[in-house]
Structure formats: C-alpha cells, structure tokens
C-alpha cells in the first residue's frame, strides 16, 4: 500500500469560531479526498529543524466532485505546543504540512445503517459537523440528531450553521446542553449531559441508530455508558476520545 505522503497546505482563509477556536481553510493540492470523521496529521517545523506533529479532525466535507480545500477547526490549548501556533500565529499564505486522511472507523457515509445520533462534547463537535456537512452535500436522507454539550454560549462552534440546520427542517435536529452557563431564557438550568437528555433528544434504541460520540475522554466515557444503559448496542456506538494534552 502506498505510504501517506506529507503535503504542503497553504492557509487561504481563517475565521474564529470562539475566542479560543479558529477554523483554518487550507488549500492542499492533489488532496485525495476524505470521509467525514477522518483526521489529518499536522507537522510544524521550526527554523532549526525541530518538528512537532499532532492529529486534528477534519471539519469540512469533501465535495463529491473533488476539491483541494480542507478545513480544520483547532482549539487553542493553554499548555499546547502546536495548537497556539495554529490559532494565533499561522497567517494567510503560510504553509504547514499535513498527511492523511487517516481513520477508517469513526466515519459516516451514506452506507452506514440507520438514523444517526451525534453526541459532541466541546471541540468534539468538529468531526461530527463534518458528518452534518457531508450529509447535506450528498443530499442523504438518513435523519440526524446532534446532541452537543458545551460549557457556555461563548463556547459554541458553528453557531450560524447550526441555527440554519435547526431551521431548515431537512432531517437534522440539533440540541444544545449547557453545562456551566446557559443563555438568558434557556428552558433548563445548566448541567451535565444525562440519560434524560439523551433519551429525549437522541434516538430510542429500537430505532437502531448508529451513534458517534466525540469529545474529551471523561465526556465520551460518560456519554457512551449512558447510551449503553439506554439500551443501545455497543456495536453501534463509535467513539473518538480526545487525549489530555
């Protein structure tokens, strides 16, 4: 099998999702395409040759006709080595290296059976948003439900797009769970994702959804355990845990 090659990626645009998360729009010539949920390895090289690599989920869907654009939504980690460079230093026209796409399990395509439940914790929404976007591009019919847990309104990624999805009525429903502070007038007090919210805003187990759960380790452990307790078959629950550092 052919080795995944490192490719030069040029930043062509960027936008802030929150004060700590930036979407990088990268141009990657000859990009082979990807499935939503896959990730890339990013490599940075300092002037003296020192290199650092990290993995980032792809946020964008790959259009059926192809294309060389790729979006990564990167959260700045306070003690991070690579993410602060990507959020605060990398400028339009600058290049980084990446290789991929990587990952053949935490991916959705139209052949994945059943309705889809997406459960996001914080920046774990990124690969799940790629799935929502791919569904729209493919005009797929499988109904999606997204349950997105976040600390506060200031931490919401993809706000406008999620609002459009909500209003669109095209088979994607999104429900937000605020854990620390909710917007004024929010119907429920802030609190952790629980079985009741998953039961109400997810799918019943007998609908046999394919579930994708992504976020920090503790969140994924909790959410996946809740889904199992609600009767979902563990074989239909796919998880991606973000490491601690």
């Amino acid at each position: 099998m052919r080795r995944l090659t490192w490719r030069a990626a040029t930043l062509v645009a960027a936008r802030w999702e929150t004060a700590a998360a930036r979407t990088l729009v990268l141009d990657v010539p000859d990009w082979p395409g990807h499935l939503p949920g896959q990730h890339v390895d990013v490599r940075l090289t300092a002037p003296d040759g020192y290199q650092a690599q990290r993995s980032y989920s792809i946020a964008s869907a790959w259009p059926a006709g192809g294309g060389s654009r790729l979006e990564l939504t990167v959260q700045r980690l306070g003690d991070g080595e690579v993410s602060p460079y990507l959020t605060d230093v990398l400028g339009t026209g600058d290049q980084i290296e990446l290789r991929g796409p990587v990952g053949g399990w935490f991916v959705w395509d139209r052949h994945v059976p059943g309705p889809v439940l997406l459960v996001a914790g914080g920046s774990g929404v990124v690969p799940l948003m790629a799935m929502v976007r791919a569904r729209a591009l493919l005009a797929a019919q499988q109904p999606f439900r997204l349950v997105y847990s976040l600390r506060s309104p200031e931490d919401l990624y993809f706000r406008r797009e999620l609002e459009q999805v909500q209003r669109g009525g095209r088979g994607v429903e999104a429900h937000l769970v605020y854990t620390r502070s909710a917007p004024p007038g929010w119907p429920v007090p802030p609190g952790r994702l629980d079985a009741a919210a998953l039961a109400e805003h997810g799918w019943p187990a007998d609908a046999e959804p394919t579930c994708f759960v992504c976020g920090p380790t503790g969140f994924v452990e909790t959410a996946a355990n809740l889904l199992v307790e609600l009767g979902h078959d563990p074989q239909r629950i796919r998880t991606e845990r973000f490491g601690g550092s």
Partner: protein
Amino acid sequence: MATFSPGFGGRRRAARDDLPPGQYETHDFPVLSYGPTPHVPRDTWQFTLTDENGARRSWSWQELLDLPQEDITVDIHCVTKWSKFATSWRGVSLDVLLDDVETSADFAVAHSYGGYTTNLPLDDLLDGKAWIAHGYDGQDLEPEHGGPARLLVPHLYFWKSAKWVDGLRLTTTDEPGFWETNGYHAYGDPWREQRYWGD
C-alpha cells in the same frame, strides 16, 4: 523537505532521545478506544489461548493471579503521538502462558471483550516482551485503561496492547485486526514510525 513554519519555536526543546520520532511526552494517561468501555466482572473473566489447530486452554481470574507475577516499568507510545515514560504495571508474562504450548504458528491475534482484535507476530509476544497486565501504578487496572486485564506490548504502538483482552489465537498467517483493517500499520514499530498503511 520540511515546510518551514515561520514563528514556530517548539516548546519541548529538551526532547529526550528515548522519544520515538513524531511523538511528544505526556504526563496524563489519555484513552483511545473505538467504542464504549466494556465492564467485565472478574468472577466471569476468562483468558483463552487457542492454537492453530483449535486446541484451547483457559485461565480464570484466580488462575491468572496464581501464576508468577511480574512488576514491569516501561515507556509506552500511542499512535496518536503521545508517549508516556516509566509507566509501572503488574501482570503475567506471556512466556508463562505460552510456556508449554507446541506450535508452528508465526502469528497471534489478540481478542477482547467488546470485539476488538489486533494482530502480532508471535515472536513479539515472547522472551519478556509482553504481558497480561492487571495492575497499573500500584492499583487495579481501571476499566477505561483496559481493566480487568489488557495485553501489554510496550515495544509496539499501544493499539497492539489490546484492552479487555480475553484471548489469544495462534495462526500460521498474519490476519489484520481491527485498527489494522481501518488504516493502521500491520506491525506498528514506533521507532520506525509505522503508523499507517504503507508506512
């Protein structure tokens, strides 16, 4: 022909020479699993060794604990780029479990509660290179890290160290396991940076 990243200094300059290429040191213990964490009771736990002819031998939890135990301190390396130095484990060497097994198999497939599999050359499990580990840092191994027992094969990327292990099947041909059929390398040597297909 690395791309120059203007303004990137890198933070961990004192990179250790025992850090494999592309890795960084972490002091946490991140978790990577493809699905929910199985919770396996010790009183029903079982480890089954199956040879290439289908002959089986099983150990219960108590039988595992009755075998000679080793304390192991090793560095571990995850394909997601973190490495953790000097982790301490307790478990049973696979040399003990495979001691009286006559086999012409060159490969093994590790099986787990929950359905996970991973393939390894049999030689990589012998001669003090691999264990069934049930203790970590002086405690019972937590479920999210593979408890009650996991494979520990520290010289390969950590996806080879199957969590919630329930058996080992010896084979004469190399059969790719779960991640190996989902894009990861068949062998997974961190020092040769064998992360993905074709590496």
